[in-house]
């Protein structure tokens, strides 16, 4: 993975496979603490306790047809490389929460990448899923709720090409306001 965005897509895909209908993503840049925080929370079926213990093992996966699962182990590796940490909490039948802390200015921290394109892709690929997004930096914050967006657009499908263009602009314009003076994120 070259960008943190790609890790986010990967974790969100796990939520989708777990049957989540609601996924909350939060990204926070804390300059004072030199921390980049990412959390992804879903209401999927959750992970069995014995599987949870092995979740970061690259040679473990819950999938029956393929015995390797690299997604969470790669994200954990990247977090720890920057002096950060990775944690996952899950309750069966209720959902899963992934929390990642990375060193914001650490030389080995990957760039966040194309966040606008990533969010747009998740929204248009999964119009049936309720996404809640929140991002904060020292410049301010930006949040959206896919249900509120759909409602504001009179119930239009978010994956319609005409809507996608508007969505992309809405997200990009707001993300542009959050870029720090030091060009982080």
């Amino acid at each position, binding site marked *: 993975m070259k960008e943190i965005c790609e890790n986010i897509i990967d974790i969100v895909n796990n939520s989708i496979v777990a049957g989540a209908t609601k996924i909350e993503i939060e990204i926070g840049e804390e300059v004072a603490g030199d921390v980049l925080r990412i959390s992804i929370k879903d209401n999927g079926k959750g992970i069995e306790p014995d599987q949870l213990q092995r979740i970061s093992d690259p040679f473990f996966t819950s999938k029956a047809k393929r015995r390797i699962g690299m*997604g969470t182990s790669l994200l954990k590796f990247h977090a720890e490389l920057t002096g950060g940490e990775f944690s996952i909490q899950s309750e069966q039948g209720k959902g899963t929460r992934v929390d990642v802390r990375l060193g914001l200015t650490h030389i080995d921290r990957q760039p966040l990448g194309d966040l606008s394109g990533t969010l*747009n892709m998740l929204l248009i690929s999964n119009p049936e899923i309720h996404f809640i997004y929140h991002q904060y930096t020292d410049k301010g914050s930006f949040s959206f709720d896919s249900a509120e*967006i759909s409602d504001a657009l*009179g119930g239009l499908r978010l994956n319609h090409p005409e809507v996608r263009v508007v969505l992309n602009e809405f997200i990009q314009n707001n993300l542009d306001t959050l870029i720090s003076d030091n060009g982080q994120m």
Partner: protein
Amino acid sequence: MAKITSLNDLRKIKDELQQKIRLRENADSPEAMVQIRVGMATSGIASGAKEVFIFLVDELEKRNVDAVVTQTGDMGYSYAEPTIEVILPGKDPVVFGWVDVEKADEIIEKYIRGGELVEGIIPANYNTIDD
């Protein structure tokens, strides 16, 4: 048009959008649309599937091809990532492997618009690995 930054801005352009969509949907039935699924498991993402996904969505729109692009899980061809499945209206699915932006461009022009097969086809006998 003013910058779109808030839910109110989205509400303001709702009618214009609905009008555009009505015009478009009257012209084409959903069955007439090209369907593309992009394999976005870990191996696909790490191989550049996101760039391919965004390129396909942008370029199909620019070239006036009515298509639905969605993401899917592992198709079982990690060695050939990124992989995409293309279903032309009335045709069987075709899976292409090793799809970068350049190959995606060729698939749009030659296969989707011209009906001509291009290199990189994988036999479409997979099941998406979700369980």
